[in-house]
């Protein structure tokens, strides 16, 4: 089965550029004529995860594989890791610093939304080493 592979570096030092990886992924999916509901879910889930990498982990990279029936996304960083995944997954839980809260982030809704919009989600995280988030979004 054919696939498109996309790779993006997500810089941690320029907050204003966060969202570029999910934005260009969305553009590519549209050009493919991909299922529009799947595009929407990819765009939202990937955006949230990308922002998390920038806010909480000083950046990282993403790999996206587009198959005719699904999109697989890996978002990896070498940030601080997540101490308690169950807690992090709760709506409203956030350790976001004040400076990003003033921009409207830090509601603690990112991970819960990622879960809601993706069909499969797996977090590999080690304190002090980093976090890997694997997402699969299927065409329904």
């Amino acid at each position, binding site marked *: *089965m054919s*696939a498109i592979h996309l790779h993006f570096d997500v810089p941690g030092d320029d907050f204003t550029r966060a969202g570029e990886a999910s*934005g260009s992924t969305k553009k590519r999916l*549209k050009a*493919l*004529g991909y299922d529009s509901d799947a595009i*929407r879910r990819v*765009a939202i889930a990937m*955006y949230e995860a990308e922002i998390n990498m920038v806010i909480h982990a000083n950046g990282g990279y993403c790999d996206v594989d587009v198959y*005719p029936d699904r999109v697989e996304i890996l978002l990896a960083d070498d940030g601080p890791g997540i101490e308690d995944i169950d807690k992090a997954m709760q709506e409203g839980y956030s350790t976001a610093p004040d400076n990003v809260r003033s921009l409207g982030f830090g509601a603690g809704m990112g991970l819960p939304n990622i879960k809601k919009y993706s069909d499969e989600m797996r977090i590999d995280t080690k304190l002090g080493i980093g976090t890997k988030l694997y997402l699969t979004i299927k065409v329904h």
Partner: protein
Amino acid sequence: MSTYFHSVTLQPNLCCGCTNCLKRCPTEAIRVHEGKAHILRQRCIDCGECIRNCPHHAKKALSSTMEEIENYKIKVALPAPALFGQFNNLDNIDIVLSGLISIGFDYVFEVSRAAELVSDATRKLISQGKLNLPVISSACPAVVRLIKIRFPELCDNVMPLLAPMEVAARIARKEVKDKTGASDEDIGVFFITPCAAKYTEILSPSVGSKSACNGAIAISHIYPELTSAMEHLKVIEPLSNSGLIGVGWSISGGESAAMLGEKYLAADGIENVIRVLEELEDDHIHDVDFIELNACSGGCVGGVLNVENPYVAQARIQNLRKYLPISLNHLDEKDLPNMLLDGELKFDSSIFSLDTDINKAIEKMTKMEEILKGLPGLDCGSCGAPSCRAMAEDIVQNHAKETDCIFKLKAKIQKVYDQLKDTI
């Protein structure tokens, strides 16, 4: 969809094949081949950007002429509110309306009246909780068409109401029929338009099949005749019947202001409109119920078929509004069904996707990325495509060849030259 009509066209004799329009087209609908610009019809949304940006005035908008009204026994003018911003020191809309009568129309109906009804209907629908929020105004046809070909997930957010032009046409038609007993064929209804997109909307509606308008006459086309008629009026008839809400629709933010307190957002200028739609699509816009989008900067006063500078026109409209009551047209709830769109806005996926078959599309994109790596990445436009990426797409779709890129061509010539050099 080969029958799709659009208004913006090229006058080849004036086109010098430069890259001004190419680079500014928001939907990448222009290519330059053999020294002339070509518009990819299906992609054009008639926003008028190329008309604004062509230094050689090679792009123009098709619209109806005053001669066309002679095909009808009863001639009806529907002036867009933007028309009222075109005249110096105008303090009375009746002068414009009487002017329209004196240049040959039998009947006038201000589109601003219908705009007030649409505002009323919008408020009702929002309060009844019947809309997908945030709801996007359906008034600007360039925006509606853009959503139809580029924003599949937003089609359901477009207001299910007819635009004021269409509402006005239907009401005016009915009034004339009731009053005169004339048949539909005898009545010619002409919108006095600030833009190309409205003419397109009449000939090829985005939803439904038939407009109640017969044509659209450019404001710039009737302007000389109309101003002269306005100066020589014998009587000023009391024809106007719209308030500040309706007249305000001609400027960006005017339609939103009519929402009277709903949480709204208003954006104008096609690039800004696209940015808002992108954000909306990604679910980044919250706490907004109503979204007003105008393809033209400043709103309809910025349409390319106006004569006056949009900001001057805007100031005049503001001034004119001062003397008007809030609103003179109020919706009778039983009329609401007549104002609904004639169908759903359906996404047209064929325009921007590489292929309708996803496997083929993936193959094409893989090829495209490969080609793109080999192109210089300058986005110079010399090949006739707006960017290297668009060029790669054209090559994959067999609309262009690699050596249309002058850098590729140069490299090829160099190679041939080097080979020849060795053989001599």
